Structures are given as structure tokens and as C-alpha cells.
């Protein structure tokens, strides 16, 4: 948005524009075809028949970082790879999001102690939006991570200035209590995401 980014007054019209832009961004998160290790197989599985991330509009895997919105760092990053990951992140156009998938990218995972070569968490060189723990995380966990990201995007300010909004995570957590860990003030009202709740989700989240 460049010129007008978070510079216009926070009125109904700019909020409406924010809502529209955020809806577009959150409904069309294109991940990059970028697998590193074991997690990449689960990332492939989440795009494949049984789990099908395309349902959420996040299934158009782009091979080039220029056209991707989300970098799923799927697998252990070592000293040799870290520069590549950093560079790929730099090549993506704004707005860009990073999902740290798997224990290795979250904090080194099983290679934390004796992995002389392994970077203990990609937070050390790129900003991370969503951490998805697991070794490897199940495909459902990745979908949940994407939906968390969608809510985070919905809470972002694009045109209007003002204080950042609090993301609304209600109704998307598959396991009760997951949300509470991130933000204890949020109460999990519905612990299962039924089809009806899911289809209404992107717009409902924007009301906060």
C-alpha cells in the first residue's frame, strides 16, 4: 500500500477498505513450494487429496518467491541453508508471512543439543508469524496454523492508523486450550470448527 499505509484516519470508510483488503489477503494465502526436510512431506500431504489446503484458498503453491505470500519453512534449517532461507524471505514481496513448521524450525527440535550445524529456531534470522509445533506436525496442525494466520491478517491495519487490533481466534482451534496458551484472555467458545462456522469464519473474525 506504500503511500497510504496506516496513514489515513481511522473512520468507518477506511475500516471498510481494510476489511476488504484483509479479506482478500487472508483468503488467498499462496504458499511457496519450498520443502526442506521431513515436514515437507506433510506439507505435500496437506496440499494433496485427503487434507486439501486449497479449500481455504491456500493451496496454490507457487514455485517462485515473487508470487508467494507465505513461506512455510518445513524442516530443519542448518547453517548452510539459513542464508538461503533468509534470501528467499527477502525476495518475497510484502505483505509476506512465515510459518515455522515443525520442532526444528521452532527451536532446533531433536537437533537442539548435538546438532552443531543446526540453527536452533528460525526466529534467529527471519520474523515468524505462526509457529506450528510437532515433529512433524500433522496436516491438521498446518491447516490450523493457516487459519491462525488468516485471523492475524484480518486483525491487521492496512489504511487506517490506530492501535493494532487483537486477533480473534475463536472457533478455529481444533484442540481446546491451544488458544489460551497464546493469549490467556481469549476464551475458547467453540472447540470444533464445523462447516458452517468455518465458512463464516473470515468475515466473522473481522468484527473485533
Amino acid at each position, binding site marked *: 500500500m506504500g503511500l497510504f499505509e496506516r496513514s489515513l484516519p481511522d473512520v468507518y470508510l477506511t475500516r471498510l477498505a481494510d476489511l476488504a483488503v484483509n479479506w482478500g489477503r487472508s483468503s488467498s494465502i499462496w504458499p511457496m513450494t519450498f520443502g526442506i526436510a521431513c515436514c515437507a512431506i506433510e506439507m505435500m500431504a496437506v496440499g494433496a487429496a485427503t487434507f486439501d489446503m486449497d479449500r481455504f484458498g491456500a493451496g496454490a503453491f507457487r514455485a517462485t518467491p515473487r508470487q508467494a505470500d507465505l513461506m512455510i519453512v518445513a524442516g530443519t534449517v542448518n547453517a548452510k541453508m539459513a542464508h538461503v532461507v533468509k534470501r528467499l524471505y527477502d525476495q518475497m514481496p510484502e505483505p509476506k508471512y512465515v510459518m515455522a513448521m515443525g520442532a526444528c524450525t521452532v527451536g532446533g527440535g531433536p537437533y537442539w543439543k548435538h546438532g552443531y550445524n543446526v540453527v536452533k529456531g528460525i526466529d*534467529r534470522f527471519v520474523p515468524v508469524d505462526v509457529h506450528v509445533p510437532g515433529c512433524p506436525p500433522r496436516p491438521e496442525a498446518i491447516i490450523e496454523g493457516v487459519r491462525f494466520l488468516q485471523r492475524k491478517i484480518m486483525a491487521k491495519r492496512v489504511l487506517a492508523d490506530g492501535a493494532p487490533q487483537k486477533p480473534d481466534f475463536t472457533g478455529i482451534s481444533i484442540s481446546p486450550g491451544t488458544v489460551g496458551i497464546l493469549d490467556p484472555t481469549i476464551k475458547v467458545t467453540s472447540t470444533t470448527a464445523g462447516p458452517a462456522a468455518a465458512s463464516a469464519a473470515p468475515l466473522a473474525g473481522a468484527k473485533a
Partner: protein
Amino acid sequence: MTVAEAFEQLKKDGQAAGVELFPGPKDAALVVTRERVKAVLRHLRDARPFACDLLVLVTGTHMTEKKDAKGVLVREAGFEVIWHLRSVQHRSILAVKCKLPTADPTVDSVADLWPAANWHERETWDLVGIRFTGHPDLRRILLPEGWEGHPLRKDYAYPKEFHGINLEVDAPWPTP
């Protein structure tokens, strides 16, 4: 063909100079001196009774000195290189071992006998630091260029950072 039979056959072929039989606690092997190892390996590949055409594995090991409770030396300091060879024809597997001194871990490359050895030797150089003379392109393979030290040596210290990437175990959590 067991290792003992192979040793007998080597004797018969007149190639047994510098070759000993290592009976081993588990896997037996032929122990060859550093000077003879390439000739023996070449013979194992070419001679019909052996026909070891498939190089399975090249292993380098860094050995530290170890004494048991009574102070008897059970393990000498030094390096060990083990070649595992398979014969597709005879369905057999052979191990050939070579001991190298700590000060000068150098041995002849067999990359010209088996192209498969090329990468194995590069890896052994990379991780253990054993130098293979005559190797066409001996450079690091797994670790990036500029890495210091050879990780599989027993005295290796884990690096704190590499080219600006923090590799410490207990680094502070980054704050946005």
C-alpha cells in the same frame, strides 16, 4: 567368501604382503598397511575370486586412546579407514581396514578404482578430516566452505556462530 577365506586367497595370489587378519569381536576385516592398501583394493576389485565390484562404504573413524581399569591399552590413538566391498557375483561382503597415525591421516584415494568412492572420500575428509591423496576434487561436501574443524573428531568443539547465523544452544529468545 568370508574374510578368512579372502585372506587365504590373497596369500595364494601373492598379495598378502602388509595384510593381516583382524578377527574382531564381531566383524572380521583385513588390516592393510597404508602403503599397500591401494594395491590390495585394486586386487580385490580385479581378481576373479574376489570380484569386489561394488564399493559399499568408506568409513573414517577418529580413535582416541583408551585404557581399561587395569591400565592396559585397549584402543590406540589414531585414525581408521574401513572400506566395505561387496561382490555382486559372489554375494559376499569384505571389510578392509587401514590404520593411520594421528599426526598424518593420509591415505591413497580409490576414487579412480570405484567412482563411488569419490563422494565417500569427500565426506570422510569433510567430517573426519582424513586426507585422500590422488582424489580428483577433495573439498567439503556436507558442511559449507569455510567451516572450521572436522565434526566427527572426538575433540571437536561445537561452533557458536557461522557467518552471522547464531548456532548457540542457549541463545536469548529474539525479541521482535
